[in-house]
């Protein structure tokens, strides 16, 4: 299967004014590395503030002005420049936004799904296609004429998904598509992602909902404090979590209400704190001497990856 997305050693920092004209560079993402193939769903889980949304913004080239990004983002093996991103977004690469607020409240649903067109002919063509895809998602012709406030939560979500699919994308990035939805609507949304997978689309699913991630994803990437600390296989999230590798991933698994709701103390390192060693050092229960000053790299273990010295020999 061809790779659709490669994220290689991406880091992001923000230029911040402190006092007067003093500037400092605040690093918030240090090393994100992941990849997605055609027809693969990679879910990204991680602590709040670990950089999940910023990664999505970096892929679409919509980081704020004062952000500085390093590392590579590749689409089908080719590194993307800002101009490439602007060219591809909304076409080959699409975002399923989290919030229904992305819909324009003053515009009819069908018009905003079709978007800007140059000629009447183009408009007709797109309209036909829009109707076809909407129908697949169980949105009848009456929906075309509606305004956003007339949609229920579930319908709005179907509109967002089918609108994203109108351009026949190769890569779909969904940022938190399920929070606050009831079980039935979550299930429906997940089925949409399964369908995309069948159609050969690569999906990056950013979510806090481990259950949702496990239901559809092939692999799960775990973010912590601006690093990818583990890429696990779906089946590793079972039993007592004994097949999970990184201590943070294990803790995350055990914090789920049905796996014990275990409280662990501490938080990720503060921004701007210069960390030399492992980002998880402060909270780690099995740390070694070298973990304090040496930073572990992401170790490749075949299908899995982990950033922890404990697994160095196994590689």
């Amino acid at each position: 299967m061809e790779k659709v997305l490669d994220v290689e050693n991406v880091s992001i920092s923000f230029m911040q004014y402190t006092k007067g004209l003093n500037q400092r560079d605040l690093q918030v993402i240090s090393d994100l590395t992941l990849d997605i193939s055609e027809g693969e769903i990679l879910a990204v889980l991680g602590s709040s503030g670990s950089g999940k949304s910023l990664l999505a913004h970096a892929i679409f080239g919509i980081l704020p002005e004062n952000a500085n990004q390093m590392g590579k983002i590749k689409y089908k093996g080719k590194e993307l420049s800002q101009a490439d991103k602007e060219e591809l977004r909304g076409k080959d690469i699409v975002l399923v936004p989290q919030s229904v607020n992305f819909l324009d409240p003053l515009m009819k649903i069908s018009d905003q799904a079709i978007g800007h067109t140059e000629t009447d002919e183009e408009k007709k063509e797109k309209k036909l296609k829009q109707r076809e895809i909407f129908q697949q998602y169980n949105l009848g012709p009456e929906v075309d004429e509606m305004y956003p406030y007339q949609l229920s939560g579930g319908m709005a979500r179907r509109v967002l998904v089918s609108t994203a699919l109108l351009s026949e994308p190769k890569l779909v990035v969904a940022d938190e598509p399920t929070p606050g939805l009831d079980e039935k609507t979550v299930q429906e949304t997940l089925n949409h992602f399964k369908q995309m997978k069948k159609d050969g689309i690569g999906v990056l699913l950013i979510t806090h909902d481990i259950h949702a991630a496990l239901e559809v994803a092939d692999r799960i990437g775990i973010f912590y404090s601006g690093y990818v600390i583990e890429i696990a296989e779906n089946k590793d999230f079972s039993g007592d979590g004994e097949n999970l590798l990184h201590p943070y991933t294990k803790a995350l698994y055990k914090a789920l209400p049905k796996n014990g709701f275990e409280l662990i103390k501490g938080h990720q390192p503060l921004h701007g704190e210069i960390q030399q060693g492992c980002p998880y050092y402060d909270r780690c229960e099995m740390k070694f001497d070298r973990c304090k000053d040496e930073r572990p790299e992401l170790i490749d273990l075949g299908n899995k990856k982990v950033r922890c010295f404990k697994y160095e020999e196994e590689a």
Partner: protein
Amino acid sequence: MELKATDVSFKYPSAKEYLLKDVNIELDNNKIMGLIGDSGSGKSTLCKILSSYITNYEGSVSFDGNPLPKKGFKPIQLIYQHPEKVMNPKWRMSQVLKESWDVTDEDLEEFGIQKSWLNRFPQELSGGELQRFSVLRSLNPNTKFLIADEMTTMLDAITQVQILDSVLKVVKKRKMGFLLVSHDMDLVDTICDDKIYFKDINGV
């Protein structure tokens, strides 16, 4: 302490049909309650009525036998799922907090808020970081009852345990009432003493 809604009905001005019909619910500070229901079914609207963010409803809501105050501080505080929607984007976080009450350094620490975040604007924080602020902001010393509407849905599992642990500590210490609205049955079963299904109390 008792928060009680009697025969509450409500319809949004633009809608044809009633969203809430003859809803009755009684809550107190002896039990932590969970409210479960489908999305779009009107749970959040009921929460807004119970906390006096919506006032043009039919029926009545009383707190310890008295109607809710129409002006001034709201003793029943609501924590939303999307904190960014209710924060002034032009205010720094220190101002956002200060508008409600003077929090101490210990409070910041307990809720995992870094001091450097106080100088930022809401859009410069992640969803989970913002939610810590909105929770702490709602814990004004005059708050008597807390309604958490999908409060931890935007958080990772570890942060969810941490924030709920901190909130419940305060709730128990100050003997406040607490209603958790969630779609996550595992969570409701873990935290709450009892649960209410929204469809059982809404007569639409």
